Each structure stands twice: as C-alpha cells, then as structure tokens.
C-alpha cells in the first residue's frame, strides 16, 4: 500500500446534510467543489458545505480531512482522503482509503478499505468490515465485526455478533462479545499471551510478543496461527 503523501497544504472540509446519498471524491489537487443543493463557505482554510435533503457530490483534494454529519442516506468517500469522520443515523458508510477513520452509524453497514493510522468504526445494528488498518477500535451491537490485516492494537466489542480479527503483526487485542464467536489470527512466529480478563491487567510475560484478551459470554474464542 503506498504511503500517503506528506500534506503541505492541509485542507479541511466539513459537510453536513440531512438525507440523500452523499459521495465525496478525494482525488487530485483541484479545489473543493460540489454538485447538488448546498451552501459553501470558506473560513481559515476550512471549507464548510451545508446541504439539505437530496443527493450531494463533493470533490476534495487528495489527502483532505473530511468531516461528515448526516441523518440518513448512504455515504461514500472514495479516493484517498486524510482524516475522515462520519456521523450518521442510518445509512451505509463506505470509506475507500484514508489516513484515519472515525465512522459511526446507528443502522447501517460500515465498510472501510485502507487506513494508515487508527480506524474507529461503530454501528448499532450493522456489520463492520475493515480491510486494512493501523490500529482498530471497532464496535457493533448486533452486527458482525471483521478486520483483516491490522497493523496495530485492536479493540473490538459486540453485544451479539461474531468478531474476526486478522493481525498483520504482533499487536495487543481486546475483543469482547456477549454472544458470538471470536476468531483471532496471528502471523506465524508471534508468541501470544492469552487472557480472558477484559481489559487485560496482568503485564505481558517477557517471553511473549502480544496480549490477546478475549471474552465471549456464550461463544467460542479461537486464536489461530497462519
């Protein structure tokens, strides 16, 4: 995965809408523009786009920080963005690539592609899927959590859902579900200290590389090496 370019001119874009599909394209270096019904204001390097209901398309430069607030409607962030944050009540959220991600929705699925730093995702009743990230902080009340290729510490929390985490390196994991299976896969050669105390309190033994603290109320906890 290519690293994000060092940002020389950070751009911050704040977008709010009430309903309707919202598509943000983070490509190239052209100035911020939009397609749809909205008002745009520029203040101290921050571009604010206030939309109402109806579809809204916004183009931002690659690496721009994007903050999105919406009530309902699908949200797509394509291209390669900087820090991305999305808060919505209902609607599927998808982020293709970003420096960091913070997504929260009540009743929609969350799909995240590649995240250089932390990926934080919350859904009340939707599935959370992350393809690749630095660290991960993931939660869903009743949906499955799946994160593969994670390069940093992981926190995953479900009430009733399955948790599946694939570590790309030695990193601490805290995973908890009241009812559902927990599957953690670690690279070959990584020495895991396993505990069911969540969060873990005992120090990691010197002869191990990471701590996996996992607890399921009524499901199986499985740690595998690949």
């Amino acid at each position: 995965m290519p690293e994000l370019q060092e940002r020389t001119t950070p751009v911050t874009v704040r977008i709010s809408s009430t309903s309707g599909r919202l598509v943000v394209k983070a490509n190239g270096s052209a100035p911020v523009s939009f397609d749809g019904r909205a008002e745009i204001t520029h203040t101290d390097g921050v571009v604010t786009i206030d939309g109402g209901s109806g579809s809204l398309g916004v183009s931002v430069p690659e690496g721009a920080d994007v903050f999105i607030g919406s009530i309902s409607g699908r949200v797509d962030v394509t291209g390669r963005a900087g820090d991305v944050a999305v808060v919505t009540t209902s609607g599927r959220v998808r982020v293709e690539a970003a420096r960091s991600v913070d997504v929260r929705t009540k009743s929609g699925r969350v799909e995240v592609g590649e995240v250089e730093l932390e990926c934080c995702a919350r859904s009340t009743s939707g599935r959370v899927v992350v393809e690749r990230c630095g660290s991960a902080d993931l939660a869903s009340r009743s949906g499955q959590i799946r994160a593969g290729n994670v390069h940093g510490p992981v926190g995953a929390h479900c009430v009733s859902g399955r948790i599946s985490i694939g570590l790309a390196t030695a990193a601490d994991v805290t995973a908890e579900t009241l009812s559902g299976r927990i599957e953690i896969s670690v690279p070959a050669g990584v020495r895991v200290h396993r505990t069911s105390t969540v969060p873990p309190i005992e120090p990691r033994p010197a002869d191990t590389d990471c701590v996996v603290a996992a607890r399921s109320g009524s499901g199986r906890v499985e740690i595998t090496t690949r």
Partner: protein
Amino acid sequence: MTAAATTTTVVDTVVGAVLFTDLVGFTDFNEVRGDAEALVVLERQRAIVDRMLSVAPGSRVVKELGDGLMIWFASAGAGVSVACDLMRAIDTARGVDDFPLAVRMGLHHGDALVRGDDLVGSTVNVAARVCDLAGPGELLVSDDAIAAGAEQVSETTLECFRPIGPARVKGVGHPVWLHRLTEPDRRSRVLK
C-alpha cells in the same frame, strides 16, 4: 366569544453540563446472568459514580434510567474532568474487579430548566443523543462543552480529545460538533 387565556410559569434555569451514561449490553447481560447479578452491576456502577462525584461540588445524579444515569455538573470543566475520570475508573474496574460491562457516555453543556429534582430542555436532549452515538468504553463530548470548559480543564486532558465531526441531532437545527476521548498511544501505530 372566549378570550384566549395565556399562562406563564416561572421556572428556574441553570447552566452547566449534562452527562448521560449507558451500560452497553446490559439487557442481554441481565437475560443471560439473571436479575441478581444485574442488580450488583448497577450498584457497583452507582458506587463508582458517587465516588467520582464526591470531588465535584454541585454535581449530582439527576436520575437513573434503567442501566443508565443522567448526571448534572455545575460547570463544563467539572463535567469534562469528572467524565474522563469516570471513564478511566470504570475501565480500571473492568480489569481489576472484573466489572462485566463497558459504559458509554455523552456530555453536553448549556442551560436547563429545573422541574422538581429533574432537569429538562434541549441541553438534556442533546446530551442524550450524544451518548447514543458513543461506542462501548467511549466518551463523546460536544464542542459546546469543550469550549465552555476549556479554561477549567488541564491542557493534558484537552489534548486527549479528538474531533469526530458534525452530528445531526434530532430537534437541533445546526450540526453538533463532537469530540472523542482517545488514548494517545493508539494513534501512534502506523502501517509498516
């Protein structure tokens, strides 16, 4: 023809911060582990909260809402500081004392109307919505609370908050900006 009658009720208005807490998965926990264990969890949560509030003059638990609490602080600074401490205290209790559930919290600042022991108004409603948006083990704080409490809170504490964007909250015309309490070491890990 009857003249329209108007009634004006004088009520007290107070300014401060409202914190909502919620035990994540409490209903399921109650179902699986039974009423007795659920009650113990509630009492343990309340004991932790009371201990935290004892150092914040003017703060109080306004009411219990099932497994959640509505808490009042006389200032935004106290709200932010105590909410952070409360989150850490519950985190510690989860590890050391095997407290079984994660808590989520939402804090907002503004004025509220006094109704007996209760408080009502938009500030209360927004605080509840902010809590709804928090994940397990997460504290979300509105921009209003951060701004109002900035001078009363240590710089170290403020640096732990990260903006997470504008939330559209039902009943509020403008987006409410939210901040999330983060663990600083989490973000330092990058892809290799």
